Structures are given as C-alpha cells and as structure tokens.
C-alpha cells in the first residue's frame, strides 16, 4: 500500500459518497437496495482489509494517520487516526450497518433509496467520530450523525415518531452544545498559553487547566456524552427513540451510535481533563451502578419487547461506564470489549425483536408464547442472544462484563458490588422475556414464518462472532492493548 494514499479518507467517506449515489437511484428501489448493500459490504471489506494488513502501531498507538490543514486561520486540521480501539469500533460499525441493511431488507417500502442513503450517511458520521483526532472535526461528525438519524426516526418510524425524533435530537443536541463550549474554552485556553491556536487532540492534551475550570469543562463533556451514552438520569430519550425508530435504525442506534459516547469519553474527555475526570469518577460510578440496576429493574416491568431491550441497553451501557470510570487497564479493556459485545448482542436482540414485530406487527410480549415449537430457528437465535446478553460464560458478553467487574473491583469494590447485583437482575428480565416469547402457550394464535435463509445466515454470522468473542477474545484484546496501555499510563 502506498503510504501516501489517503486510505482513511476513503474509509470515512465511502459510505457517504455511496449513500449519495444510492439517493440518486430513487426511481428504482430494488437497485438502490442492492447498491446500498454493496457499498456497505465494500466498507466492511475495506475495514477488514485494513485490520488484517495494519502495519505495526507506532509509539503513539496509531497505525494509520492522516493530517492535512483545513481551516488554518483557526488552527483546524483534518486529522484522522486509527489505533486499535478505533479499528475495532470501525469494524463493528461497518458490520452492524450491513447487518441492519440485510435483516431489514424489505422493512421500508417508501422512499427506499433515501432510507438507505441516510443509513449510509449515518455510518459516515459515526466513523468520523471514531477516526477524528481534531476536536473540531470530531464535533462536526458528532453533530452530523444526528441529522440522518433524526430523519430515519422521523420519516420511517412508527408510533409517536416525530415526538421521539425531536426528543432524541433535542436531548443530544443540547448536550452537545455544552460540549462545544467546553471545546472552545479549551482551545482558547491552550492558545493563550502556547500562542498557537489549535484544535488538535495531541496539542490540547498539554493544556494546563485550572482545577475548577477543569471541573466545569469535564461536566460539560460528561453531560453531552452522558446523554448519548446514556447515563441514567439522562436516558429519557432512549426508550422512545429506540421504540419508535424503524428496526434497522434501532439496531444502528443501539449497536453503534451509543458507542460513540463511550469512545469519546475514552478518547477525548479523560485524556484532555485527567484531573477533573478523576474528581468526577465517583459521579460516574454512581450513575453507572444506578444505571445497571435501574435499567434492569425497569426492563423487568416492560411488556413491549422493544422497550424492554431498550432499557436492558441502558443497563448494559452502565457496565461500560463503570469500566471507563475505573480507568484501570483491565477494566478499560473490558469496557472497550463490552462496547463491541454490546453492539453485537443488543444489536442482535433488537434484530430479533424487530423481526418478530415485522412478522406480526405486534410488540407486546404477552401476546406471544410457545414460539419454540413453532419457529425453532428463530427461537434458537432468540434464546442464544438473550443468554449472551445475560452474560452466560462462553458467550461474548461474559468476557467483557467479567473484565469490567474484576477490573473495577480492584479500584472501587463498592461500585463493583452494586454492579454485581445487576447481574442477577439482568437474568431476571432476560428469562422473563424468553419465557414470554418462547415458552408457554400463545394467548392468541400468531402465525409466523420461520427465518429465511438470508436471515438465518446473517444471524448465524452474529452468533458465530458472539461465540468467537466469548471463547477467544484475544484478537480484540490484543488490538486494544497498546492504546489502553498508553491511555492509562498517561
């Protein structure tokens, strides 16, 4: 590979350009679908190729890097970089997008081309967050990914779709504005100290931030990221947005969009403001533990399947927050791994729930029952992903949760103990859902078709990854080892 070739830019903008071309095919939905899938697959292939052929990481941990001046007057640069953490998440993003497209191939009947175009545009937005190393660029992508998502929910959603879309947008947007203020303050502070105004992460980490100011800045970051995470008191948008968006949108939202916040916390907020982050750690612990327990508890009360999985997602994200807050190598590895696992598992759960809802147009779990005998393949996958989500050892979630818990227990046993409680509660709602759907006799006759070959194959790929990461997570752990070592030693 020619080292000067802007491969990261290609990776980043391939979905967007592809999406725009898809949008041009609006006269012909079938072609648009195929073309969109092709773009998604190409992106995934490119990511995989980068992952497999990645040169050794340099001392900064980045093995691909691109830096061009953009708006020099304000010290804004177009800086992209890929280290192990980014690579893992990029792969996840490309994979989940393809999955979402494949499994909800026919879900949307109107304005198909636009729908797929927006999905691809969201992908670019998310990839941008994972790849940017310039805070301005990061913020740009951070906001940019909201817009296609907003339309996905607002146009193709169901239920109170506009309410949910606006709520989602306002929640995240207001939080982000605070983060923008924090970024600008950092920028000015750094400029005043060194005389060179720059948005580059590598520069800004050297800013000397007074303690109190740092607290305010970190609070702004935390608020913005906490909304998207979501940390518990800020999760109000999530159940509505997850429930009312089209199934593919939900998968993207839960599977990858939520990870951007965790990633930003790891990549930007903590390194930029280490002291303040340390001061805020108890707050994050509390939010995370409350999130784990509260999410699981509220999930138990849900009878709307999608809403149940949505709250379970709150609970699972609590583990990630916990791992980040602990900021120890083991816990952080667990958190990053759990980001991937959560993407796979919760994504798959939303897929399953979405497929059921697509077949029967009913999301009320109490209306189902006895599916085990009727649709064995679907039931098998349903059970599989639910058990993965409940943290059955040997499947992916267990490894992540275990690392997080063990790593956290070392530094904060109290917080970890609260999270342990969550393990029990997780099982309680999972088993309830499984029982409602798979066991018993149906309270009303539901006619269902079992999975098609396309669906089975796609879900099988998810399941294989689930097992693989549960049995042999070493590839991911090796990838993220260097960056995490760098982050936690700094």
């Amino acid at each position, binding site marked *: 590979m020619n080292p000067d070739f802007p491969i990261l830019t290609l990776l980043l903008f391939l979905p967007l350009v592809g999406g725009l071309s898809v949008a041009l095919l609006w006269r012909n939905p079938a072609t648009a679908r195929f073309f969109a899938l092709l773009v998604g697959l190409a992106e995934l292939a490119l990511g995989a190729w980068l992952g497999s052929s990645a040169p050794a990481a340099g001392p900064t941990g980045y093995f691909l890097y691109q830096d061009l001046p953009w708006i020099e007057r304000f010290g804004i640069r177009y800086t992209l970089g890929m280290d192990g953490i980014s690579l893992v998440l990029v792969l996840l993003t490309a994979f989940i997008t393809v999955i979402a497209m494949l499994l909800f191939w026919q879900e949307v009947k109107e304005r198909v081309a636009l729908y797929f175009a927006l999905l691809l545009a969201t992908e670019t937005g998310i990839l941008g967050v994972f790849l940017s190393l310039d805070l301005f660029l990061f913020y740009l992508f951070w906001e940019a990914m909201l817009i296609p998502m907003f339309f996905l929910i607002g146009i193709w959603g169901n239920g109170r779709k506009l309410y949910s879309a606006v*709520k989602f947008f*306002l*929640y995240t947007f207001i939080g982000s504005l605070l983060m923008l203020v924090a970024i600008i303050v950092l920028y000015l502070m750094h400029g005043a100290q060194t005389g060179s105004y720059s948005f580059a992460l590598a520069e800004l980490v050297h800013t000397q931030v007074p303690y109190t100011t740092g607290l305010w800045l970190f609070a702004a970051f935390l608020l913005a990221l906490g909304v998207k995470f979501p940390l518990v*008191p800020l*999760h*109000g948008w999530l*159940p*509505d947005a997850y429930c009312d968006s089209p199934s593919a949108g939900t998968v993207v939202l839960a599977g990858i969009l939520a990870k951007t916040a965790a990633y930003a916390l790891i990549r930007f907020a903590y390194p930029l403001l280490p002291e303040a982050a340390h001061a805020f750690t108890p707050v994050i612990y509390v939010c995370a533990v409350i999130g784990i327990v*509260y999410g699981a*508890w*509220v999930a*138990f*009360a*849900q009878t709307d399947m999608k809403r149940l999985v949505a709250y379970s997602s709150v609970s699972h994200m609590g583990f990630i927050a916990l791992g980040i807050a602990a900021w120890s*190598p*083991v816990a952080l*590895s*667990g958190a990053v*791994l759990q980001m991937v696992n959560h993407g796979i598992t919760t994504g798959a759960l939303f897929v399953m729930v979405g497929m059921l809802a697509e077949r029967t147009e009913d999301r009320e779990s109490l209306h189902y029952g*006895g599916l*085990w*005998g009727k649709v*064995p393949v679907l039931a*098998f996958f349903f059970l599989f992903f639910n*058990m993965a989500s409940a943290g*059955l*050892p*040997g499947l992916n979630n*267990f*490894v992540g949760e*275990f*690392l997080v*818990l*063990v*790593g956290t*227990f*070392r530094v904060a*046993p109290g917080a*970890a*103990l609260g999270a*342990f*409680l969550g*393990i*029990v509660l997780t*099982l*309680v709602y999972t*088993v*309830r859902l499984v*029982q409602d759907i*798979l*066991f*018993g*006799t149906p309270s009303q006759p539901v006619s269902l078709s079992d999975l098609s070959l396309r669906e089975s194959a796609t879900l099988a790929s998810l399941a294989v990854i689930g097992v693989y990461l549960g*049995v*042999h*997570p*070493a590839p991911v*752990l090796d990838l993220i*080892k260097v960056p995490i*070592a760098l982050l936690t030693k700094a």
Partner: protein
Amino acid sequence: MTTYLSLMLLIPLFGGVLNALVGRNLPRRLAESLACAAVWGSFVCAVLAALAYHGPEKVVVAQWFQAFDLALPLSLYLDPLSLSLCLMICFVCGLIHLYSVFYMAAEADYARFFALLNLFVFAMLSLVLAENLVLLYLGWEGVGFCSYLLIGFWYTEKENADAGRKAFITTRIGDTALMVALAWLFQLFGTLSITQLNGMGFLLPAGIVTALGLLMLAGAIGKSAQLPLMVWLPDAMAGPTPVSAMIHAATMVTAGVYLLARMYPLIGSSTVTTSAIAIVGGLTAFYGASCALAQRDLKRVLAFSTISQIGYMMLGVGAGAITAATFHLLVHAFFKALLFLGAGCVITAMHHEQDIFRMGGLRRTLPITFWCFLAGAACLAGLPLTGGFFSKDSILTALWMKGTALTQALYFLGLLTALITAFYSFRMVYLVFFGSNAHQQGHHEQSDVLPMELVLIPLALLGLFGGVLDLPGYLGGGFLGSFLGPLSGAHPVEASHTEELALQGVAATLALAGVFAAHVRYGGAARDNRLQESLLKPAPLVAFLLNGWYFDALYRALLIRPYQALSRVLWQQVDEGVINGGIDRLADGVGSTGSWLGRWTTGQVAVYLLSFAAGGALLLGYLAWRSL
C-alpha cells in the same frame, strides 16, 4: 493426559452442539446414539485418565483471554477429587442417557433434549476439571443454563417454564456471590488459579478468609439448594425424570459441595466459615427431611431428600471431613439417581401419575424396579452395611470427633435427621409398592419399562456396595480415604475403632427404628388408614411441611411481589413520571412561554412600533444612565 482430559470435555460438547444444530434433521436413532456415544466416550477418556493417573496434574489446554495482568488460561486439574467425580459423572450420566432413550421414546423433540443433556455433561465436567476459577464458573453457569432449559423442557405448560426460571434465577443469586469472590481473589492475589490460590490462603488475614469463605458458601448454597436458597429444587422436578436424576440429584446440585471441598485449603482455616457451612448443612438436612415427610408427589419426596442429603455433605465439609463428604457425594449420586430412575419407571408405568397416595401394589407389577428401589431406599435410610450407611456415618463420626459444642449439637441434629430419613424413605416404599390399589388397570406393557429397569441394576449394586469405597477403620480402612488423603485440609480427627463402632451402632439403631416406625404407620393394614386420611384436608403441621415451611410464600411476599411492584413504580412513576414527565413538562413550559410571547405579535403595526420605540428608548436611557 492433556488428550484424555480435553477429549473428555470436547466429546460431549461436540455431541451437544451437533445435536443442537442438526439434530432435528438426523434420524432419531442416530441422534440418540450420538448423545449416548458422546457421554460414554467421555467415560472411556475418564477411565483412561484414571489408569494413566499417577499424581495431581495441571494441564493448560489453551489461552482463554488475557488482559494485562489478568490471564485466564483454559487449564484443567486432575487430582483424586476431580478424578473420582469425573468417573462418577460420566458413568451416572451415561446410564441416564441410556435410560432417557427409552424414557423419552415418545417425545418428538428428542434432539433438543439430548443436545442439552450432552451440553450439561460438558459443563459439569468442565466445572469439576477446572483449574481456573473462571473456567469453573463457566461450568457452573453452564450447568445452570442446561438445568433451566431442561426443567422447562415441556415448555408449553407455564408451571414447567416457571420452575425453570425460578431455578435459574435463584441459583444466579448464589453464582453472583461466587463471582464477587472471584473478583476479590483476583484483587488480592492477581491470579484465579485454584492450585495457586489454595497454597496462598495463609497470607490473608482471617477476616478476609472468612468473608471469602462465606461468599463461596453463598454460591454453594444457591447451586446445592441449601437454606435459604433451596426453594427451587422441589419445583425443578417439573423437568423430565431423567433430568431430575442426572442434574437435580446426582451431579449439578452437588457442585456446591464440590466447590467448598475444592477450595477447602483456602477457606477451611476460618472457623467462622466452617461453622457456617456446618450450620447451613445441618439445618438444611433437617429441613429437607422434615419436608420430605409430608410430600405426596413421589419426585418431590426425592427432591427434599436430595436437599437433605446435600445438607449432610455440607455438614461433612463443615466438619472438615472432605473425604467423608466426597464419599457421601459419590454414593448419594448412585443411590439418588437410582431412586429417581426407579421413580421414572413407576411414573411411566402409572401414566404420569406422581401422587404416592394413588399408587400401590407395584412390587408385583414392577418387580425389578421394586427391588432396585428398595435398595436405593435402604441406602437413603442408612440401613447398616449399605453404601449410604457408611458414607453418612463417616460424616456423623467426623462431626462427633471434632468435638466442639457446635459440631456435637449438629451431630444430634444429624442423628435426628437420619431417623426421619429412614422413616420417610420407607413411607415412600410402603405407599408406592405395597398394598393394592384401584389404579391397577392400564399398566404399560412390561417391555416398555424393562429396558429402563435394566439400567437400575448397576446403580443399585453400586449403591448397596458403594461402602467398600471407603470402609471404616475397623474393617481395614478404605480406598477413598487414602486416595483423597493428599488433599490438604482433609485431615479430620481419626476415631478409634471402638468409638467408631459405637457411633455406627447408634446410627444403625436409629435407622432401623425409623424403618420400623414407617412399617408401623404405613405397612400392612395401617396403609389403608393413611390412604383414607390423605383424602382429608391436611393438618396444619402437615400442610406446613408439605409447603416446605412456606418459604415460597414468604419469598413471594417478601421479595418477588415487592420487586414486581417496585419495577412498575420505577417505570411508571420514576421513569415515565419524573424523568420523562419532567422533560415533557419542561418542553411544554418552553412551548407555552413561546406561544405566550407570541401573542406580542398582534399583527398591529402600532404595537410593533411602540415596542421598537420602547426598545430604542431603553437603549438611550441606558446610555444616559451610564454617563451619569
């Protein structure tokens, strides 16, 4: 050795996965043979390993995951304890697999059944063989998962699924305590290797050892259905009978005992912990036996007796008599599996009738079952010279010999329990097999039950003569005692021969007394009176025992109801009400403020002009005021 051990694990795993994935498309015979072959293959490996065995051995098969200093290899450990358990598990499970082929002959969903059975064997073996606590945890959760699905195997009935769920969640509570212990151990030592941890216990202050021990005890309590988490086991009888025999009698439920025995070198140094183990065991033994007295469902009698017998094993561990506990574990596995399988024959013959008060006269129609069942009951009752007698007695002896006030009090509790045990065992035998009953018509053809009955015979022999595994000292000492001897910490005080004989004499007398009492109350003519009584409303005490001391109701009122209610409150009041409602009200407030301000735009030019002028005047006024 690595080959044997990994094959022992991989064969059932492979069998299970294969059956799970393609079993539905395989011919029935092939799927069944595959499942059986997998377990017996495992057994062969276990035997080969036993033959090649010449001392404790640790084997690293592969790396599982490693993150910085947390390295978790897939390592296995073969020592006398795990070896003897492996042999037992493979053998008993193998027999039960064979039995299931006939028992489940009418079941359409055989692939799922055998897949889960095989997976269970895999999980159980990895639990036992694990050298690494996380691998042990994998097995630990794996057996729980299989048990969950197998209890709810006949999922179309809500009660079965509920029972499975209850089992899974209740044991999860204990599992979580175990996981806390794991995290703590890693924090303390930076390793989770059992062999290393067992060697490092002395480094810790006593308080921490106690806490760790209690956490592990909590794990064991969940898995082994001890007080106060025993409520799931009686309900678990909703599963098919072979499952009850395999999981809820012979293997999985004894995992807690195994864990405590395995970690004894670490946790045994804390008196508080061992006392707690012994107290839990003693109380549970008594609780289970007392409940078994009043049960009407054949399988529930056996379930409560299992709870009670595991209580004995815990007593043994608490007394520091690891050998005795293991001995009882093995023998119990044989005779309890035997009893369950016998019950399965009975139930099949009775067309899934499980109420013992509606049975009777089966000793004539099912003679093989009768004799085998009788052998099992004799073991359970601890009649002299049966395997159960020796194993139970070695526990009681160890308790007595430990000599503290607590253990001697528990000894008497154990004796009382032994008496009750003998009584309810033979109550069961008399009610099921003796007398005559109106429900004689429509028995299965003998040939249906016969292959199942054949499986009982080896188990009956093992149960009856299991005592030779570890004979008491005055008969020349036992094989197991010397075999398990190297386990550190397993050195209870040796009793002299006279003491031992005296103690055994007491136990034997009590057992015989219990059988006699049962005979008086349920044998012969008295049996019919009992049948008449059983049609009446039970007395309060009987109802109390029948319902397992109302623990279920207590938990329902104390835990489950509040949890459900609170979950609804959290959702509707807190989440929808406060968090969401707050945001919505805020949005409404902003909206109404906006529309209120919007009324300013009256559309009248004059108002705009006036506003504009007022603004200008204000600006000007402000400037003037500043310059004042």
